[in-house]
């Protein structure tokens, strides 16, 4: 069964410092991986995805993520954090298993990012 783990409930970082939000996955086959961000009382916003190709994926708002197959990780990164980046971040893997291949997303439990001025 496919799964995603986000080992940190919360990440605290000072504005201007680099940030990393961790994600590891377990899938059979090649993974489709995603990062979403959720602001209070808002839906999830798509940040970036990895399907194939370059291991470093660039996305919205200056975020990027590094796919590491040997470590089964897909960590979200940003070189310089902003206070406005404070939000709840979800890593997800697309379910490619089963005969139906529904393409549903399986989400991690989320990591709260707190960026302090």
């Amino acid at each position, binding site marked *: 069964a496919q799964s995603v783990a986000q080992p940190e409930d919360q990440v605290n970082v000072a504005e201007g410092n680099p940030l990393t939000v961790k994600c590891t996955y377990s899938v059979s086959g090649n993974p489709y991986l995603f990062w979403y961000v959720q602001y209070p*009382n808002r839906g999830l916003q798509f940040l970036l995805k990895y399907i194939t190709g370059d291991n470093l994926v660039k996305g919205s708002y200056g975020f990027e993520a590094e796919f590491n197959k040997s470590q089964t990780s897909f960590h979200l990164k940003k070189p310089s954090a902003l206070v406005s980046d404070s939000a709840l971040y979800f890593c997800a893997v697309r379910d490619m298993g089963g005969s139906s291949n529904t393409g549903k997303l399986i989400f991690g439990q989320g990591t709260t990012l707190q960026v302090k001025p």
Partner: protein
Amino acid sequence: EAGVAQSPRYKIIEKRQSVAFWCNPISGHATLYWYQQILGQGPKLLIQFQNNGVVDDSQLPKDRFSAERLKGVDSTLKIQPAKLEDSAVYLCASRGQGSEQYFGPGTRLTVT
């Protein structure tokens, strides 16, 4: 391009009452998803439609939850009767030809 629309944004009901949520996906998106997000957890799929057909409803509590997408566009999700544990945010998402899903703002349901 307009995003995914959902209504209502908030709903408070008593247990054993019924409630319905509405979703209008992004124009042209054939695939529509309903997710349940309980506080402190990631969203979990309830049901997936491809046009007006159900692709996956394996996680839908069918004794109390139902959903439809009659014309392959808008969708409604209903709970009858509601239980306390149904308190959650209900998210609708749609997907076009690409692999990413686009989410609506959600409906926050409180069952008292």
